[in-house]
């Protein structure tokens, strides 16, 4: 059947099983919105209040469901507003399709109204991008875009769609399968490499599993849990991997890296074998590189070959999907492993755990932010989805929330995008209408996409924002205190706080202001029954620091553990 390009977009998305698109219209993409209208509800659309919000929503939708998130934006300012959202998804390997309008092909290059070199801008922040020049290529490109977004190491794909291409007509034929000559991700690991790695694990004296986001993306968590249980080898998690092991797994040493636990970091420091399960040795994890894991050999399982050997010398490289590799590896280990072998090692690490547990000094006068997170963990159902913004509150959430399964924590790890948490929570709620979704935010971050309260109101996406309000850009303030002799340059927000209660109410939400512990519990319980976007503005101890901490460019073992007395 002959169709115009705009209709082809809609029909292709339906063929891909997409049910919801997040977006914002404008001149260059109007034809697509017209066909969306005509499709009358076959494809739902969430109109955000800002393109950045729309892309973060698609991202939260994707991360929470494992599906591909889709966003529409217009040309020029539409796509430039989307850039932060795309880059956020790219650094955390989130599968997205972003379709932007573009000026007509004949106007490209003329500095036309709302023309920007969109594919030029998104090239370094997408897995791949396309400028569609002919409507005949459109269906194939959409198919290819979906395939690229979700296969191999996932990531966002951007399609730039000139207006005349949306008008042009052709026969619609959605390809069933796709085969690309130049792109063939490796899923199955090399058998011999797997065998060698398994032997290294069995022979190691002080091995540690270093669990990363790849374990989440490949859906390997059950295998990882089994592997840990059978071998009794201790494990650490990156920020992106929180929840792969249950928080109460006795072999979980906690999060690793700058704000990781002492035991987790010492395990990496003292290990003789580090087994990366889809973790990429980020600088926030390794600390000072020259002194990282000096006595350890490395096993690195990753679907992206460019991650292996990028940061650390890798003796046992395995390119492949974590899940498929573990399926091969597990039987080889089960046969021969002797969990008693690591008993001495476990004892040492447990000593570290007891010596320096994650802790804070609670108070009855002021609310400690860590208390809020722990308390929330007690109150919420186990299947609640947690998103965060970026700052101290993000690290406290990663440290203190009791995560029980992967994809439960949705946070901007790689890019560290303030303003991510709330729209991501709305997207997650759209994908999981029956689950509680809570965003832990800060008084700085929440302002960066606060306009989306209206979106939550309009589409009935009741998510709860718990604002850990320290009246500071807290994380920057902490660094100023620690490394800049407490010169608080432009981080004190105490004179510039909005009334979050009124702010929420003005856009159809509900607000609470809390400065006593009892009131917090009441507010949260009330918010859970409200079916509205909620802000709980919790006034917390202003000067609390995120601890322990590996100071920037220090070795992992040199952690600051206690607050220095001032």
């Amino acid at each position: 059947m002959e169709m115009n390009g705009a209709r082809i977009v809609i029909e292709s998305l339906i063929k891909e099983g997409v049910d919801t698109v997040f977006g914002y219209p404008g001149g260059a993409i109007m034809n697509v919105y017209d066909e969306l209208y005509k499709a009358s509800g076959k494809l739902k659309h969430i109109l955000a209040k800002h393109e950045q919000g729309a892309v973060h929503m698609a991202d939260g939708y994707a991360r929470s469901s494992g599906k591909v998130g889709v966003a529409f934006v217009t040309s020029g300012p539409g796509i430039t507003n989307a850039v932060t959202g795309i880059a956020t998804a790219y650094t955390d390997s989130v599968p997205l399709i972003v379709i932007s309008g573009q000026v007509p092909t004949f106007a490209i290059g003329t500095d036309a109204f709302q023309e920007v070199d969109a594919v030029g801008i998104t090239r370094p922040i997408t897995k791949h991008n396309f400028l569609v020049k002919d409507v005949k290529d459109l269906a194939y490109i959409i198919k290819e875009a979906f395939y690229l977004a979700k296969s191999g190491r996932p990531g966002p794909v951007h399609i730039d769609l000139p207006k005349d291409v949306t008008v042009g007509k052709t026969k619609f034929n959605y390809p069933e399968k796709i085969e690309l000559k130049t792109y063939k991700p490796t899923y199955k690991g090399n058998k011999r490499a797997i065998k060698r790695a398994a032997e290294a694990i069995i022979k190691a004296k002080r091995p540690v599993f270093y669990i990363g986001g790849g374990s989440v993306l490949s859906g390997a968590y059950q295998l990882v849990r089994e592997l840990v249980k059978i071998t009794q080898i201790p494990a650490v998690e990156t920020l992106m991997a929180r929840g792969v092991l249950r928080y109460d797994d006795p072999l979980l040493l906690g999060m690793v890296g700058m704000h990781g636990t002492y035991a987790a970091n010492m395990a990496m420091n003292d290990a003789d074998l580090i087994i990366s399960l889809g973790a990429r040795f980020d600088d926030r994890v390794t600390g000072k590189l020259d002194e990282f894991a000096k006595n350890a050999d490395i096993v690195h399982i990753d679907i992206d070959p460019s991650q292996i050997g990028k940061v650390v010398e890798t003796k046992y490289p395995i390119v492949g999907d974590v899940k498929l590799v573990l399926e091969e590896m597990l039987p080889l280990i089960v046969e021969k492993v002797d969990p008693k072998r690591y008993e001495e090692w476990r004892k040492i690490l447990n000593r570290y755990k007891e010596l320096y547990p994650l802790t804070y000094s609670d108070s009855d006068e002021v609310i400690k932010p860590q208390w809020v997170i722990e308390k929330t963990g007690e109150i919420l159902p186990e299947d609640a989805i947690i998103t965060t913004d970026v700052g101290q509150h993000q690290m406290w959430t990663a440290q203190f929330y009791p995560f029980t399964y992967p994809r439960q924590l949705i946070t901007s790890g790689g890019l560290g995008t303030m303003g991510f948490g709330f729209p991501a929570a709305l997207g997650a709620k759209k994908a999981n209408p029956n689950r509680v979704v809570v965003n832990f935010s800060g008084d700085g971050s929440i302002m960066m996409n606060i306009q989306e309260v209206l979106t939550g109101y309009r589409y009935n996406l009741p998510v709860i924002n718990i604002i850990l309000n320290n009246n500071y850009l807290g994380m920057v303030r902490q660094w100023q205190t620690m490394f800049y002799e407490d010169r608080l340059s432009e981080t004190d927000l105490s004179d510039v706080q909005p009334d979050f209660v009124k702010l929420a109410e003005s856009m159809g939400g509900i607000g609470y202001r809390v400065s006593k512990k009892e009131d917090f519990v009441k507010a949260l319980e009330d918010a859970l029954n409200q079916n509205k976007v909620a802000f709980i503005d919790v006034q917390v101890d202003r000067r609390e620091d995120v601890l322990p901490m590996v100071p920037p460019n220090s070795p992992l073992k040199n952690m600051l553990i206690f607050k220095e007395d001032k």
Partner: protein
Amino acid sequence: MKRIISVIVENEHGVLARVVNMFAARGYNITSLTVAPIPNSEFSRMTIMSEGDPKVFEQIVKQLYKLIPVYKVIESDDFIEKEMAMVKFPLKDVKDNLADIDAIARCYNGHISNVNDKNIVVSVVDRPDRIDNFLKAMQAKFKNLEIVRSGVSVIER
């Protein structure tokens, strides 16, 4: 360390920009770059001369493979390397015989390509290090020398 790689890429919109941007974004050098379509195929061949230690090169190759339109990256210690160079100098600067200049050019697989009332153009094709020698010889002779180098192309033996 100087190294040469050949990259086979799909002929599609922006592919050159993708490759070049990747080098720029990751701080890798490009010393020279040549590109042309491979006849009767949907591919082009890019030859890139770059600098860096082996670890950097390993990353360059992996990052190239990560680009979707990259089909193949060829690294070899057994390339035949060729580069073309053209030099132009004023006729009036020629002190000795034109035949001598032609003789030098022929040592480097070249010849005098053009002579008009003002200038002489000599072109040669040879290994990059030999091109360096040729240019040194010419620079010693002619102060007023315009040089164009094509960048290196390679093929495996």
